[in-house]
């Protein structure tokens, strides 16, 4: 396969996720588009419930049986993710695209050692020996800044702090040197000091390994520092997408404008007004957003 750097590694056109519920269909994600090049960082921002996590789970094919995403295009390299067989998807997951989750405390299996869980992806995909996998696990634990890496392999998740567990999760996602990493708010559950460390680590590793990164976050400061592109989601739709500098300089949509105003600045009055969100169900499908934003009124 020729790696054409002009071709995006990930192409998404009109991704829609409908969730059937007892009271009607919930249009959780409503026709979003974006492209991601190799080595690029895309930050998806938006408030809770805006569909960020669902989008990332849809990319990984982890939405489960009840929820069927639809899209005109959802390609990872040349693989159409929505048409691919479960087997093809399994061969991609963990090997060429991997994910770091929001909850380090519960995302590791309590019954297996850190070493077992680290080596698992490599043993599933790589066809390598346990010894090689072990070496790789130690190497990556060191890379994510865990001291005494070798002795950590025989420890269990409950013996590690939240920050350490998230580092283990990152190491785990990197085991097979994936081309795409999706990190869903990887630092929300951690202390502020640890948050900065973990993010820096992630960005450094991304640059070192040349991976594409989708980072889902609330933190606009992080976005300004690391993102090449930003996608702002609101109520399941992409309200703004573009290069980071443009967004911060001149947001065209009222919602990101409101969002930027939410960054507290010393000496400035609090102008945090992002509007009242009236619930997904009340919104018309696709098309115009029924937002009640202060800027429009």
């Amino acid at each position, binding site marked *: 396969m020729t790696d054409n750097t002009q071709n995006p590694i990930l192409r998404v056109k009109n991704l829609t996720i409908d969730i059937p519920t007892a009271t009607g269909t919930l249009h959780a994600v409503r026709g979003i588009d974006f492209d991601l090049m190799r080595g690029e960082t895309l930050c998806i921002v938006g408030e809770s419930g805006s569909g960020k996590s669902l989008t990332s789970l849809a990319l990984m094919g*982890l939405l489960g049986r009840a929820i069927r995403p639809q899209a005109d295009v959802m390609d990872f390299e040349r693989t159409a993710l929505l048409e691919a067989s479960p087997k093809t998807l399994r061969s991609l*997951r963990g090997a060429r695209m991997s994910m770091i989750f929001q909850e380090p405390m519960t995302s590791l299996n309590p*019954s297996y050692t850190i070493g077992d869980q680290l080596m698992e992806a490599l043993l*599933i*995909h790589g066809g390598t020996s346990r010894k090689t996998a072990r070496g790789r696990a130690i190497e990556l634990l060191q890379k994510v800044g865990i001291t005494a890496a070798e002795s950590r392999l025989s420890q269990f998740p409950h013996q590690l702090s939240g920050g350490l567990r998230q580092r283990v999760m990152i190491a785990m996602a990197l085991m097979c040197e994936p081309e795409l990493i999706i990190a869903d708010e990887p630092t929300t559950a951690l202390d502020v000091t640890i948050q900065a460390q973990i993010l820096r680590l992630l960005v450094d590793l991304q640059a070192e390994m040349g991976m594409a990164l989708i980072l889902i976050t609330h933190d606009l400061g992080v976005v300004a520092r690391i993102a090449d592109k930003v996608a702002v989601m609101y109520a399941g739709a992409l309200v703004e997408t573009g290069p980071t500098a443009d967004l911060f300089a001149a947001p065209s949509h009222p919602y990101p404008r409101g969002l930027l105003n939410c960054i507290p600045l010393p000496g400035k009055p609090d102008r945090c007004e992002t509007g009242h969100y009236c619930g997904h169900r009340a919104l018309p499908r696709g098309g115009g957003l029924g937002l009640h934003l202060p800027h429009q009124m």
Partner: protein
Amino acid sequence: MLSFILKRLGLAFLVAVTVSLISFVLLYLSGDPAIALAGEGASSEDIAAINVRYGFDRPMVVQYGAWLLSALTGDFGESYYFKMPVSSLLAERLSVTMLLGLCGISFALVTAVPLGVLAAMRPNSIIDRFALLLSVAGQAMPSFWFGLILVVIFSIKLRWLPASGSSTWAHFILPTVVLGYYAMPAIMRLTRAGMLEVLSSDYIRTARAKGASEGRVLFKHALRNAIIPVVSLAAVQMGFMLGGSIVVESIFALHGAGFLAYESISRNDLPTVQALVLIFSMFYIIFTFTADVLNAWLDPRMRSA
């Protein structure tokens, strides 16, 4: 892990000593054994003679010490009714009961765990409904009735299996089904509930994100965590099957320990009852100890407890 096992062993030993003391004292509280032995109209000389012969005149502590010491060497005295050593009586009866108990719990586990896993994989599906129906029926049907129905169908109508006795393996099939079916619903529902909870947990999503196959997710990642409460339950049910299979043993005329316990209680056969109570509680202690060790092996967080 080793220190955990040693700690549990020590605890099990203390429980065993306490249980033996309680069972010894309780049986003496149920009435004067000499009067029970001699019968209602016995003279005081007869009672005194019995007291001396069986050692009832000694202080309670001495009697307990002597009983425990000989019990440790396998000597439980002589049965008042059968006029033979309790130990040989037990050896004969316990083998039947233990075989039945083992078959029963195995049957229950082999049917209930896969059914629970299947039901949890597809909640509210036809399989789930079927499993629910089966477990409700199992809980609702008294085992004596279910046993008799099986005898009517398989022994009398179809003539496939013997109705009573314990001489061949075929004799154990119907009792196993009856005994196992009684324990199955609880195990099935606990497996289902545990699997449902574990399958929606974050680490299962992590396993899937690694590209693990569905079988690997189910059996390596989910079942190991979901089965932990089932292990404890199965241990208790196994103990219950040994001591409480009187009904099943009576229906199928299996002369096991449960039936012996029933007989001995009604005959005031003190040494036999004492030995049975002791043995049954020792089994309980062994099963819970095994379950604890098994659970600690399954879940490393329990090892520090």
